């Protein structure tokens, strides 16, 4: 049976924990709004880009002289997994669910006799995968110093990936990130970026025949590396929004749990106090009766 003083200390400590989680939740909410706005304003570019690329890819893709980034190297022996996670923890299952998806995929590929290489973006994913996939790490991108994600961050990662591709280090690249659905749902997603895959064009835009200047092949060769950067940028932004969303709901839960714990402890504290009072009364009364 803990003493009254212990209980009181315990309650105080849980109360301050609740304050912290509450503050973290509010910070996450503010950051989430900003991250969502950033994701929102990057969408027009990504959408238009994909429309143009899909049209180009459809008309050039079949030919033998299509760029390697579109056609692939003709093999799929070496896979590069780009695992994007957060730099910080305390965001529920966000980091571990992305890491898990990457781990499952890596196991599957290795089961088929493929070689796996892992490039991690974000410290938490690296920590989570170190034990199982540590020997396959080929690089790490640290974004902990980055205050606000910009396109240049994506470009840096893309340059790294493309450099490795040109050097023939891998045949297929896949990025892992969490797609932001809403505050409580983030979907861990794997997306293949090299060789590039584009969604089919829908609507009336599909039928338009464009003049290309310079040639279709030249434009495609120019744009495909940008496509990699664009895909990585969208993924980074989705991930940013997902991280804040996950942290917000995790901290909301923590705040609620702390509240429940405080209630329980307060009841226990009151009971113990009452027990002490009753005990004292009994002692006084029995003492008086004995006289």
């Amino acid at each position, binding site marked *: 049976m803990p003493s009254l003083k212990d209980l009181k200390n315990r309650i105080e400590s849980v109360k301050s924990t609740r304050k912290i989680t509450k503050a973290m939740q509010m910070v996450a909410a503010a950051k989430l709004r900003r991250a969502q706005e*950033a994701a929102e304003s990057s969408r*027009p*570019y990504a959408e238009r880009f994909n429309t*143009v690329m899909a049209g180009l890819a459809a008309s050039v893709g079949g030919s033998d002289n299509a760029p390697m980034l579109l056609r692939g190297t003709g093999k799929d022996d070496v896979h590069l997994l780009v695992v994007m996670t957060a730099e910080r923890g305390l965001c529920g299952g966000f980091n571990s669910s992305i890491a898990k998806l990457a781990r499952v995929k890596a196991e599957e590929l290795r089961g088929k006799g493929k070689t796996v290489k892992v490039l991690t973006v974000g410290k938490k994913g690296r920590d989570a995968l170190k034990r199982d996939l540590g020997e396959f790490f080929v690089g790490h991108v640290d974004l902990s110093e980055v205050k606000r994600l910009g396109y240049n961050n994506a470009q840096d990662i893309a340059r790294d990936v493309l450099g490795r591709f040109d050097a023939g280090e891998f045949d297929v690249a896949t990025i892992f990130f969490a797609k932001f659905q809403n505050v409580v749902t983030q979907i861990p997603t794997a997306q293949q970026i090299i060789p590039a895959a584009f969604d089919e064009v829908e609507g009336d835009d599909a039928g338009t025949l*464009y003049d290309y*200047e310079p040639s279709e092949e030249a434009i495609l060769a*120019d744009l495909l590396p940008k496509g990699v950067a664009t895909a990585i940028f969208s993924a980074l932004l989705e991930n940013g929004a997902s991280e804040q969303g996950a942290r917000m709901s995790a901290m909301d839960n923590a705040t609620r749990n702390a509240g429940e714990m405080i209630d329980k402890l307060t009841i226990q504290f009151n009971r113990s106090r009452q027990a002490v009072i009753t005990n004292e009364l009994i002692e006084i009364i029995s003492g008086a009766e004995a006289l």
Partner: protein
Amino acid sequence: MANTMQFDLVSPERSLASFPVSAVQIPGADGDMTAMPDHAPTITTLRPGILKAEGPDGNAEFLVTGGFAQINADAMSVLAEKAIPVGEVTRAHLDEMIAEARASHQNAVDQGHHSIVDEAAKLLADMEALGTHMSL
């Protein structure tokens, strides 16, 4: 009356401009070109340069690098990796871009790819010409 078309300028981070225009001059990869309403559908890549948009509500000029333009009869979208309104461009921006171009030129020279060297040299020259043009 189709004397205007919709003009959109978007960068990966945000949408910079969206308004009706009567003519847009863009620095195409094969030379400057002006697109007006009812232009034949065209897709062209851009070299670094100045984009000029003329509209009924006024004109706008942007410094654009790396991207492409998609022209339709009634709309035109320019997707640029970097786009800055000309009024906001400072010497520092330009210096940064020239430094970048110079670095990639040097890199290309080191690796000894002739086509890339030429391309990078052209990019560098474009950048410097841009500075002169804007009298920075």
